[in-house]
């Protein structure tokens, strides 16, 4: 089992539907760069409230895929935002990036060759 995510648990979060979970992975892979960009922009702008919100949103996605490490890294940044404390924010960011990249790679592998657009198109058709 991967340490990056717990697929069995993630399946429960998607009502036991693997096809749906794979579709959600596709949505996440597409949306993630922008979500990460928003976190980065909040850090650069020293916008604590925005950091809290964007990290919170990422954390939610990580929880859905039962990616506990990525979730924990996002939560750490969310807390920094809540406390308006940017002291260790760069460490937090690096950790988050590392975990999210790992998660994205794992999800991409789960998509099993289908690229995310294809995955979405299948569902939309």
């Amino acid at each position: 089992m991967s340490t990056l995510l717990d697929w069995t648990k993630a399946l429960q979060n998607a009502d036991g539907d693997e096809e749906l979970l794979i579709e959600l992975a596709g949505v996440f892979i597409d949306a993630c760069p922008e979500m990460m960009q928003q976190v980065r922009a909040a850090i650069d702008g020293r916008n604590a409230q925005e950091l809290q919100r964007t990290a919170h949103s990422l954390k939610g996605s990580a929880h859905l895929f039962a990616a506990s490490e990525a979730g924990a890294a996002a939560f750490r940044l969310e807390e920094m935002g809540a406390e308006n404390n940017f002291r260790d924010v760069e460490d937090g960011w690096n950790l988050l990036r590392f975990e999210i990249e790992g998660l994205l790679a794992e999800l991409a592998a789960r998509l099993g060759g289908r690229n995310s657009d294809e995955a979405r198109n299948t569902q939309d058709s």
Partner: protein
Amino acid sequence: MTHKRITVLLVEDNPVYSRLIEKLLGRSDNPVFETVLAGTLGQALERLAVGGIDVVLLDLMLPDSTALDTFYRVRAHDLRIPVIVQSAMDDVGLASKAVEGGAEDYLLKDGINSATLIRSIHYAMERTHARGAEWSSAMLHLAQQQFLKAAHIAGLDPNIRQRLLFPERTQIAALPFKRDGIDQVETVFAYRVQHVLSMGPTKGGLRYHPEVSLGEVAALSMWMTWKCALAKLPFGGAKGGVRVDPAALSKDELERLTRRYTSEFIGMIGPDKDIPAPDMGTDAQVMAWIMDTYSEHVGYSVPSVVTGKPVVLGGSLGRHEATGRGLAYLVSETCRQIGLDLNGATAVVQGFGNVGMHAATFLAEAGAKIIGISDVSVALHNPKGLPIDLLKNHVRQHRQLFGCPYGEIIPSRDLLELHCDILAPCALQNQITAENSSRINCRIVAEGANGPTTLEADDMLQARGIIVLPDILANAGGVIVSYFEWVQGLQNLTWPLEEINMRMRDILTDALARTQRRAQAEKVDLRTAAMIEALSRVGAANHLRGLFP
């Protein structure tokens, strides 16, 4: 067959969750869900303005609004559309705050599935619809929000939670009775509701009031359930009502109405089924008529079909003044705990009906100085203390406090804001609100009335360190002595007044102690603690009995 269509406004900025919810809802073919997406609060409000939304699924953390603000701004837009808050596991506190504020439910994002999602939407819409129709009542809303708050904290089984939000059994009758002298039949609406049938027979007052509604009766029956469970009495809650102004009826008309009510609801009541008692607009005489009608119907005397009867018909000593006496016992015990000498303490009592009058009497007997009192006609203030016996004499002669010369007349709204040690609201619901709670100036609030404090005011009073003895505890003396009356009737025994008062005091102080322990353990206010204490008992009983069939 046409399938029901439900339009859901999904307010969520996380695309993964939006897709998940959309897909889960898409699985249902009856009802058919149409999901409308909004990624920001601005978009959501715009879409709500267009109309046609049946239910809102709301994420609180949005790009243009966060936390409870999000909820309140959606709520402010339209009070009638049910809102279900979506919450992450670590935000449950926030979500339960939203539920207190009027959200219908919250859904945990972790482990969501189509069954829980659809069920939550279904129930949220059912509840909103029911309240909008015959159940419409601010009091029922308050009772349900109080219950939901405690149920969330106590982790009550959701199956039982939904069951307890409304009464288990309800009967409505259009009740005709003859008016005096003229050839006129008046028809009024009458209700009897039984909230919980699993604890034993049900118990609750019968109220004659021009504004009684099914919702109000349901709320009162719910509070009766908690009151009985908190005091460990073997009863579920019930309540009855007739939408009529008793002051406009002659004694004969009142008797005909009461006998017709009894006959209309005779299948529901009985000493082992449901036992009415006096409430607003009814008294011992009304109970005597109910007992007589019931007894004539079955062919022998059944005194235990009602409580609060005249003593000569098997009523209990001490029943009439029991609610006020119980309140004074609890105030006295609380004063002892906080080192406040009741002898010489100042008290303000709102209301001079059965509860307020006796609360004032017994507080004064314990040495408290009653510096403010009111009834529907006037509010009186006297910093030196009001002579309760003389006030009672005045009311006996004039029916109202108005015109009584023992205090200065003040605006009614100022009464609650008088500086005092003990404030006892014993009149109406919704008296201490977010608007006036910051000006409440006392150490102890003892709720003789049902629902005098709103949830927002509760939080504000607690933050200021004011002790609130909640209604289901503070006015439980009445139902406790009603229980004694029922027990004495079933055993054909009569207990002396001293024994009745001692037993009542024991039950109340035990309930207070359990409530305080619960409040400390759960870190909640006394009302929530009392509710948790009560509903844990009802929840446990329901679990043990199981579900038939």
